[in-house]
């Protein structure tokens, strides 16, 4: 029998095979609950993984972009030092472009702190130079040495130094999310195995009667496997729906909220949720099948 046919037979069911095992209300409810709770948790682990994945990607993008050079010098030297710095930067490998910010741009940057009426001309404001890196990046230590020699008033502010650890942390967080999903899957398999073992033990007499009258192991196993697979499928569907609802009802992401409120699904990533119930079903199918084969193999 091909796998596909076997699967469809399993889902469509064999009403008779199903009836040979007496209904067990309690185990059934526990299995449903466990599958549901696990699916609910999976939704959050998945949300965490996807959100930190997005975060890491965003930080990574910005990482590739910019650093800032700040020139503090007496007013009469400012123009000369700025020109010297730009010359140094343009001749540094790994820098795509360097551009001195205009007075208006600098005023824009300072406005949130000092108000729009700042008399910029009368204050010793440092000149900022925006540096855009190439993909390979530049040698920060080497650049600092050259600047020290040629533009004594320059301070290189390299954003990457604080972004990299954050990006690494986001990557770890994402990994943690995936590990959690793996653990949840394994725990689901363990719980279903325990439930299936309990059901098999409770039905020892049924199994021995079936063996006596000539039932194959596969027939007996199917009755149990189908039951647990459908329970896990149903439980996980309910759990996933509730988890999705909970995520949906989270306060929506805001600029200032940053990471925490960014937890959620965007666009296509909602589709990942649809995979949870079938995966739970597959886990239950494999776990119950293994438990049934093991139990039946020990019988005579």
């Amino acid at each position, binding site marked *: 029998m091909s796998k596909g046919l076997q699967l469809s037979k399993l889902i469509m069911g064999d009403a008779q095979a199903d009836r040979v095992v007496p209904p067990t209300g309690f185990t059934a409810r526990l299995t449903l609950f466990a599958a549901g709770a696990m699916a609910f948790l999976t939704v959050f682990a998945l949300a965490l993984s996807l959100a930190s994945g997005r975060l890491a990607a965003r930080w990574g993008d910005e990482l590739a972009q910019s650093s800032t050079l700040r020139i503090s010098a007496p007013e009469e030297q400012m123009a000369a030092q700025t020109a010297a710095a730009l010359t140094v930067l343009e001749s540094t490998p790994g820098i795509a472009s360097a551009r001195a910010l205009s007075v208006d741009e600098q005023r824009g940057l300072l406005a949130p702190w000092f108000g729009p009426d700042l008399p910029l001309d009368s204050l010793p404001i440092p000149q900022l130079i925006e540096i855009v890196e190439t993909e390979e990046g530049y040698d920060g230590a080497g650049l600092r040495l050259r600047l020290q020699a040629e533009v004594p008033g320059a301070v290189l502010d390299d954003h990457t130094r604080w972004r990299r650890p954050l990006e690494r942390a986001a990557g770890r967080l994402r990994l943690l999310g995936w590990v959690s999903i793996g653990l949840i899957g394994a725990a689901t398999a363990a719980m279903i195995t325990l439930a299936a073992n309990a059901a098999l033990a409770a039905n020892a007499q049924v199994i021995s009667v079936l063996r006596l009258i*000539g039932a194959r192991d596969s027939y007996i196993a199917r009755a149990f496997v189908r039951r647990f697979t459908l329970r896990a499928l149903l439980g996980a569907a309910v759990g996933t729906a509730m988890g999705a609802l909970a995520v949906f009802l989270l306060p929506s992401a805001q600029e200032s909220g940053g990471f925490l409120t960014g937890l959620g699904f965007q666009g296509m990533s909602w589709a990942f949720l649809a995979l949870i119930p079938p995966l739970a079903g597959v886990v239950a199918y494999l776990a119950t099948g293994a438990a049934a084969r093991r139990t039946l193999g020990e019988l005579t």
Partner: protein
Amino acid sequence: MIELDNIAYSYGGGELLSEVSLKLAPGSFHFLTGPSGSGKTTFLKLCYGALTPTAGRVQLFGKDVREMDRDDHALARRQIGVVHQDCQFLDHLPVRENVALPLTVSDRDSLEQHSNLKELLTWVGLGHRASALPPELSGGERQRAALARAVIMSPDVVLADEPTGNVDWEMSQRLLQLLVELNKMGKTILIATHDLNLIRSAKHHVQARVLRISGRKLQLAGADL
């Protein structure tokens, strides 16, 4: 169809059967007798492959028991109807479905079989009890239901272990009658019993041979019972 070739069987404690050989010919009728604990049930289990002999060879329908896997055993049991002394059923299903269970598990559950099922239940006198659950049956009714379940697949051999153990004399005669009728239809019958009166009463109806287990050996008992 069932051949035992110089077999021995020992439990952890010691040898229960040794140097046992038997060939069940098609259409034969055998009684197996012997004192309690002499190994009658073990012998029957060896005959349907539930136990593997510790020495010697058992062949079921030409296949060595030792070379049969679990599916082969399942298939062999469809050709051997077994009636246990304490027959067990699926207690949550009515008698009708319990008797039809061998058909169900072998995917031979068809409409045509359902009319056979009705006839069969009437034949064992359980027509009116078809919807009862097994725990509601009396000892005799359970034995007859077990017999019906054992023969529904139309097996070549019927093995019965103390089928009259829990029933009164009248009922045991009725069960015997059913087994004799099966034998007349060509089935091979082997009945384990310690009830010598049952064996004597059978002799009027059928050409039966009596095997006795004594001192771990299987002997063909004489006609002097």
